[in-house]
């Protein structure tokens, strides 16, 4: 077994050190080592977006990032959204817009939406559909998700 490496990164605002093998994905580290189980494993090959986290502010698929690559990076997961039991605006809008059923895809959609609204505070429907194209949902249908993102853009504005 390859030697475990110590990796230091900032995860959801706190400096965190973890030990991991080079072959472990960031998703595995988040879920199994750090017990941040909000990020979900859907496909484990980059197609579904359920594992989306922000890495240095950019949305990435944590199943396609090695844990060791997180050295020195700033990682944000869905756990960073709610503060003191208070849902973040995106979460509230998804809830009110019924943009989820089983919820497996939701953490990925929320994180991609967070990044989207930072880039486009007033996104068009095309902006939303284009930027969320790497997030799949098997349950809800995309209209409710798109409408919730639009509602969130309006609420935040």
């Amino acid at each position, binding site marked *: *077994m*390859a*030697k475990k*490496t110590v990796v230091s990164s900032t995860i959801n605002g706190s400096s965190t050190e973890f030990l991991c*093998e*080079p*072959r472990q*994905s960031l998703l595995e580290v988040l879920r199994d080592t750090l017990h941040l189980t909000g990020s979900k494993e859907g496909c*484990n*090959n*980059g*197609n579904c*977006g359920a594992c*989306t986290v922000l*890495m240095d502010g*950019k*949305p*990435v*698929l944590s*199943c*396609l*990032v*090695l844990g*060791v*690559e997180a*050295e020195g990076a700033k990682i944000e997961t869905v756990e960073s959204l709610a503060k003191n039991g208070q849902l973040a605006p995106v979460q509230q809008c998804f809830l009110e817009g019924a943009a989820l059923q089983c919820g497996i895809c939701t953490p990925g959609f929320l994180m*991609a939406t967070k*990044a989207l609204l930072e880039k486009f505070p007033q996104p068009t429907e095309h902006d939303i*559909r*284009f*930027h*969320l*194209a*790497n*997030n799949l949902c098997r349950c809800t249908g995309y209209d409710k998700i798109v409408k919730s993102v639009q509602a969130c853009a309006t609420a935040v504005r």
Partner: protein
Amino acid sequence: MKDFGYAAPESLGEASRLLQHAAGSVKILAGGTDIIVQLREGMREADLVVDVKKVPELQELTFSATHGLRLGASVPCHRVYEHPQLVAAYSALVDASKIIGGWQIQSRASVGGNLCNSSPAADTIPALIAHHAWCEIASPRGKRTVAVEQFCTAPGKNVLQKGELLVAIVFPPSLSHSGSAYERFIPRNEMDIAVVGVGSRVQLNATGDTIEFARIGVGAVAPTPKYAQEASEWLAGKPATEEFFAQAGELAKKIASPISDMRGTAEYRTHLVGVMVKRTLLKAAERAKVFINH
């Protein structure tokens, strides 16, 4: 995933030494969007993974109107299409880097990785061919350069030898009165593999009605992406009209030797080459004219 070691060298020299002297199989990692999937699914194996993202030369993105573009091999796609000057100067490359995977993929995936993965359907390669780009390769014996259209040798294979790595992709300056475009045909709007992908660039005369030269790159219709040489050379001196672009499309069909699969039959793909060549030439010429009027 099978066990492997990991190294993240911070200089080109260190990276080359690691690649040359490593015992067992070594795989290079840039954005990881191909290689991590391949390692996980057992399609490739590594004893050592060398992450080249920290090598400064591979993160370089320098553009100047006179010298052209130097694109470090591990620069992620989003840095290409977010660069305000590249949008006009290297439109075909920008078109291609915008449609690779979704946003999350584009945050990590590099143009260099797309080229080195050497898929026949890779979206940036026809665009790189249209731009007449060159690969700069660091080898244990020094540096060498290879034209992009000669880089891929078979599906998933290329000219890189053990110990070599792609350092940068180098583009000649984009001249005034020129324009380029990349488009692929896919059955849905986003997130799919090209059934056919075409990158075209045209250089027009000062009035914008005659083609001085053109370059057409075609993907997904042969074991490697191809430079449509005959069609490109034929266009020189011809009027920049739809009729001539359509004829160039007919000529380009000759280089297609596609397979039939669930995305399309060989006949359908060959037909699409004609359609996509015409379409991208028209778009490239329109773009060239916009820049003439500026």
